[in-house]
């Protein structure tokens, strides 16, 4: 765990740095893939930019909307550099909406565009794991396994290392093999399915899971729902003859 690096009067947030580096390297993978798929690189870059800016603005505005009276009285608070006044869900939804709107207006082919984004997103998943490792967030459940690490006053599953390992496996081993050239969009859907499977598996080792009724872990249930959604979509494409079977 290495959450901060002091540089004179400045405090560098290492988890945030990991995300920024992950985003930057991920964007280069996306650019390369876009070129390989014959997409307009500039438009894909703009799409990422719109998504990023929309995400940041959306995260702050949705958070401010939740405390409207506070922000109406102190509007300058909207420009705070603190990441603790962001709504992650709001940022995610508005970021995707902004990117989708740009893609629609620029007539970018949806499935090919999603395929082009896949390697970059996959790399970004590694960065998210690294960010968790640096911050000590997404920590593991107490455990006495020989490889347990001491964190937050207990020996715990190194859940962040598991997360990085699986993300690396998906990025370096699985992803390069998923190139169904005759099935635009399938690569992205398969990637989402893989992430969902990884989440279902990894969540069992987490010590900070949100629990739903009867002790079910919310992330696992959501992961299964996403997996089923991916399977339905791929099955539908298969039935309509849009690509060869990739479900087997």
């Amino acid at each position, binding site marked *: 765990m290495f959450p901060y690096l002091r540089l004179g009067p400045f405090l560098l947030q290492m988890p945030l740095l990991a995300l920024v580096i992950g985003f930057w390297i991920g964007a280069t993978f996306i650019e390369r893939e876009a070129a390989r798929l014959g997409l307009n690189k500039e438009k894909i870059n703009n799409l990422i930019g719109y998504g990023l800016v929309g995400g940041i603005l959306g995260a702050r505005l949705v958070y*401010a909307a939740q*405390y409207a009276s506070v922000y109406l009285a*102190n509007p300058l608070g909207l420009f705070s550099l603190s990441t603790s006044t962001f709504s992650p869900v709001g940022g995610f939804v508005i970021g995707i909406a902004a990117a989708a709107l740009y893609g629609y207006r620029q007539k970018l082919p949806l499935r090919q565009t999603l395929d082009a984004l896949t390697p970059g997103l996959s790399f970004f998943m590694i960065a998210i794991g690294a960010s968790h490792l640096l911050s000590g967030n997404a920590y593991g459940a107490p455990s006495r396994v020989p490889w347990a690490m001491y964190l937050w006053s207990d020996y715990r599953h190194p859940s962040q290392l598991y997360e990085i390992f699986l993300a690396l496996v998906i990025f370096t081993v699985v992803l390069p093999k998923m190139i169904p050239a005759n099935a635009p969009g399938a690569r992205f859907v398969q990637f989402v399915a893989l992430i969902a*499977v990884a989440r279902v598996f990894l969540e069992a080792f987490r010590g900070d899971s949100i629990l739903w009724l009867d002790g079910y872990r919310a992330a696992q249930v959501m992961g299964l729902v996403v997996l089923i959604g*991916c399977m339905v979509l791929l099955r539908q494409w298969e039935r309509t003859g849009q690509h060869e079977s990739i479900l087997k």
Partner: protein
Amino acid sequence: MTWALVLGMIWTVTSRVSSTQPQAQPGAVAKEGFSAPDFTLDLLGGGKVTLSDLRGKVVLVNFWTSWCPPCRLEMPAIEKTYRSYKELGFVVIGLNLTAQDSERAVAEFVKEIGVTFPIALDRDNEVGNLYRNTALPTSFFIDRNGVIRSVIVGGPMSEALIQSKVEELLREGE
């Protein structure tokens, strides 16, 4: 992919947390989601404060020193928020790292700003170590159950940030 779904379902059921076994058993650690480590400190001007005595209230523990510029900058916003919300059950402990400061400078600064919330004096840096304080200012927002819900490292915090965090925790008790 079907096998992954079946295995995933089995794994989800077998790894669920039974109702008799809490998913996490947070000890007292200076981290979001854990109980705030308890402490008792002398107050500037006399008296003592014990964190656990404030259970049932929303508490902001703000680590600061008088020589730290962002600490000084955010203090008026903290004071303003304290005055606005104290009747609703909000308490601030201005936790001065006195081992790195001087009580005289602390008293002068508190008077200059017109701080009305309690200023606790950590003369041996015991609480600073307990909370693994590595940067100034650092603020811990603690809910009515004594659980740390948000940690802000660095500053200055904006008034909107402080108020939104306090409002969020106060709403939970309604």
